[in-house]
Each structure stands twice: as structure tokens, then as C-alpha cells.
């Protein structure tokens, strides 16, 4: 104790040590191993050796560009739909929810408490070939008589959208909830129409929530493989499916590792483009 009193500057480092060590050893170091693995050559039978095999990356891109593009396309569409669905809903909670706001919020996060796989499987029931939705669409003539929703890109995007919607809604809610209602009154006093007040006061003030929600939805969606696996077919497979099967079924570690890094690099690139578009200060606070 006296030692600590004499060296007070040590306290923060001692507090940081266990947590930071855990993250360093079980997050940073593994990423290093993954990078090392991605540059190896060889096979599972004959063993791998480190040979700066950069061609793993080019091979992965040229072989799996279709899955890579599809991942970002599906994740992008799902993110936009989630934003459009969530915004009016959390707007309603923030401005009309009254004292029951927190209970309405529970309804938004509630789906997260149904096991991820089980709630995705529920869409198998909902979108089933002879289910009510498919039958209604057939009656309306939107879907042909042998049309189906399962095993299509639609089902996969619908699943992703549903599964990550709460991650869009929560930060949106936080930013809308923080808006000072006096600002909206001021806009009204200055003869702004409802529409103008929304476009020039509410929407810009909720921008941090839109940015945060977009990131929280897009990043996990781009790496997802469960929706494509359960609701789609190999024709809808995403880059996550490839990484998963290469790692755990085909035992092709270098290819799987390089694809993982390509996925991360592409997400980072997408973030940078997005940061340019919305302004860096909004992204980094």
C-alpha cells in the first residue's frame, strides 16, 4: 500500500492491466496470427509454411468476388431498409411515447432476446412456400403460381434487415430523444412549416444517430453468414459463408484467413467512403 502511495501514477496502469491484457492477448494477437496464416502456403495434409504468399489474396478476390460483392450489396440494402423502417418508429417513441417510452423501447430490443438462430428460423415459417404471405402474394398476382420467397435473395435480405434492425433503432432513438423540444418550438415561432422544421432541425440533429446506426447495422451484416445459410441457398451465399466453410469444413486456413482480412479491409474502405460523405467529425465524434 505504501508503495502505491509513493507511486500514485501507477494506479491507472494497474487498473488497466487485466482488461487491456485480455484484449491484447485474445483480440490483437489472434489478428496477428490470422495475418500470418493468410500469407502461408501448403495444404492441411502436407502442413503449411510461411512464404509471404500474397497470391492468396489475389486468388481469394478473383475466386470469390461474386460473394464479396453480394455481401456488401445485401448488407447495404438491409441497412437502408432498416433505416427507413426504424426512423419513423423511434421518432414516434421519442416524441409521442410519453412516460411509456422505456416500455416501447423494450418492444424494439425484445427480438434480440430470442436466440439469434431461432428467430432467423422463424422466418422459415413465415415465408414458407405454402404460408400465408406467399399465398397472399400469389393471389394478388405479385408472385407467380410456382413462385417462392425462401431460397431467394429477398429472404436473405429480409432476414438480415430484421435481425439488425434494433442496432439501427437504438442509436437513432438516443439522438432523437436528446433533441431539445424548444428548438422545434423556435422553428415554429419563426414560421417554419412542419416539413421545414423536420428537414432543417430534427433531421440534422439526428444525424449522429443515423451514422452510428448505419455502422452498427452494416458491419455485422456484411460479415453475416447465418441468414444466407438458413434462408438462402448456395446461390445467395455471402463471404461469411465462404470463410466459415473454408475454415471449418474444407480446412483451407490460408484462403479463409486472407478472405477474413479482405472482408475487414473492404469494411474499412466502405467506412472511409462513408466518412467522406457524412463528414469525418460526425464519425469520430
Amino acid at each position, binding site marked *: 500500500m505504501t508503495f502505491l502511495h509513493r507511486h500514485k501514477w501507477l494506479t491507472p496502469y494497474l487498473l488497466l492491466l487485466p482488461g487491456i491484457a485480455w484484449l491484447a492477448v485474445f483480440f490483437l494477437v489472434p489478428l496477428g496470427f490470422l495475418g500470418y496464416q493468410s500469407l502461408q502456403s501448403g495444404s492441411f495434409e502436407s502442413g503449411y509454411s510461411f512464404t509471404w504468399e500474397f497470391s492468396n489474396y489475389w486468388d481469394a478476390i478473383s475466386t470469390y468476388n461474386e460473394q464479396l460483392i453480394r455481401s456488401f450489396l445485401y448488407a447495404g440494402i438491409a441497412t437502408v431498409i432498416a433505416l427507413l423502417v426504424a426512423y419513423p418508429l423511434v421518432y414516434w*417513441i421519442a416524441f409521442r411515447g410519453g412516460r411509456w417510452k422505456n416500455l416501447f423501447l423494450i418492444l424494439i430490443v425484445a427480438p434480440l432476446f430470442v436466440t439469434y*438462430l431461432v428467430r432467423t428460423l422463424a422466418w422459415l415459417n413465415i415465408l414458407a412456400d405454402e404460408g400465408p404471405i406467399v399465398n397472399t402474394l400469389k393471389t394478388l398476382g405479385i408472385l407467380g403460381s410456382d413462385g417462392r420467397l425462401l431460397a431467394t435473395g429477398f429472404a436473405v435480405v429480409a432476414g438480415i434487415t430484421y435481425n439488425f434492425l434494433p442496432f439501427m433503432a437504438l442509436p437513432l432513438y438516443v439522438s432523437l430523444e436528446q433533441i431539445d423540444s424548444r428548438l422545434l418550438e423556435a422553428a415554429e415561432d419563426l414560421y417554419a412549416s412542419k416539413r421545414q422544421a423536420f428537414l432543417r432541425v430534427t433531421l440534422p440533429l439526428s444525424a449522429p444517430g443515423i451514422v452510428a446506426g448505419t455502422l452498427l447495422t452494416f458491419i455485422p451484416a456484411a460479415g453475416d453468414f447465418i441468414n444466407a445459410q438458413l434462408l438462402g441457398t448456395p446461390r445467395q451465399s455471402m463471404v461469411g459463408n465462404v470463410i466459415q466453410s473454408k475454415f471449418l469444413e474444407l480446412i483451407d486456413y490460408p484462403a479463409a484467413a486472407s478472405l477474413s482480412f479482405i472482408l475487414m479491409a473492404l469494411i474499412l474502405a466502405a467506412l472511409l467512403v462513408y466518412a467522406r460523405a457524412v463528414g469525418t467529425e460526425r464519425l469520430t465524434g
Partner: protein
Amino acid sequence: MRWVRKHLLTGYAILAFGYLMLPVAVVILFSFNAPAGRFNYVWEGFTLDNWIHWDAVPGIRDAVVKSLEVGIVSTIAATALGTVLALAIVRHRFRGRGFVNVLVFLPMSTPEIVLGASLLTMFLQAQVVTGFVTIFIAHVMFIVSYVVVTVKARLIDFDRHLEEAAMDLGAGEWTTFRLITLPLLAPAILSAALLGFALSIDDFVITYFVAGSTTTFPLFVWGAARVSVPPQVNVIASAIFLVSVLFMVGNVLWGLRASRRSREPLPQALPIPEALPQPEAA
């Protein structure tokens, strides 16, 4: 027409809540189904059998027990590590702040599949046998960041005058921490722990990579999904759901009552990170 416009948004909100609840309702409904064949996709008839004989499917009981065990131990470890980290970040000045913030933020913004794949790569190279311990390591790793974010939010609003008052009255640093700081932080720590537990028992992707031959409930569902999913899976999922929602509703009502009594603003009843946790500038 004016009535329609006035209530348009409310109507939309009802529809959207319906959309959010639909799969939840389906999961619960089909937990009472008596499927005719192997597949639980079509409604055949109401039965309570699945709930009464929830462990009639081989392996499901072990999987549920394993999930609870992993959830409890990793939540305790992650909550302790994360709370201490949050205290250090908010309360102290130190070199390398930017690095610490980024390191806490990164696991939350890395796709789960990359987290799982990189951990498995390391375990394979280090010839660690994957199983319960590696699942525990992985879960603590990804829960810690969420704990830090939740506890940090509370610490920033913390009224330090209370601690100063205790010190003025002669309490030492440790006594102040034990009698003032910790009790006031308790609700935030509890929210963080509940969030961590929920994340742990729900995790599939990372666990799938580092589980070895150990089976948690989500892994059991994955295995079952390749053949046929028994209604007992819906029973377990419904039970987890109902318990979680009861916890949250109780928490919110408790908050409402407390705020009515003290006329304070509504407390944050859910562990919602303040938007996206962002790394502070170094």
C-alpha cells in the same frame, strides 16, 4: 382526412411493432405445436407436451446447462474486468489513452466471424485444445467492451461531490470506494452484467469457431437446423425470451415508481450505449 394524417404515424408505429413481434410470436406459438412429422413448420395442433418434456430431445439439456455455465462465468469475469477498465479510463489521466480507447472499441466493430476465425487460428497454432475454456476466453473478450461502454456512461454523469463529502468526513480512499462509489455504480454494473449474459447465451458465430466438441444451446440449434428443429428448441428460446423481458419490464416499472417518488427524470432503464461508442481522440 385530417384525422388520418394526425394518426398516420401512430398507425405506422403499430404496424412496425407488429413486424418486430411477428417472429417472436411465431417462435412462441410453435413451441405449443404438435408437429405430425419431423418438421415443425406447419401448425398441427395445440399441446403442452413440449414444455413439460422440454428435455426429451437427446443433448438439449446438456446444451442449455453448458450455455448457462458459460454465460455465468464469462459474465462475472467480463463485468469485473470491464468495470475496472471503465474506472481507469474515466477517473485517471494516463499516457496511451487513445490506444486504450481504440482497443476497447475495435472488438465491437469487427465482424464476429473475424473474431472467431482469428481466435481459432491462434488456438490451432498454439495447439490449445478448444472447449469450455476457449469459449470462456472468447466470450469474456467480446463482452468486456460492452461492459466498459455501459459503466463508462454512468461514470461520466457521476456526482463526485458525494465522494468528496465522504473523504471530508474522514473516510479513506478504499472506504469511500466501497461505501459510496460502488453502491452508486451498482445499477450500471448490473445492467452491464445482464447485457453481457444476454450476449453470451445468444452468441453463435464466435462460439462455433472455438467450441471444439462442446455444445452450447445455439450450437445445438445449428446442428438441429441441418436435419429438423424439434419444438423443444422453441420452448427454450421462448423461456429465455420471457425471462429477459420480465427482467427488463420489472426494471422499467421500478424506475417509473422511483422517479414518481423522487420526481427525478426517468432513469436509463436499458443498457443502451450512447449511440456508437466512439474512440476518443488521443
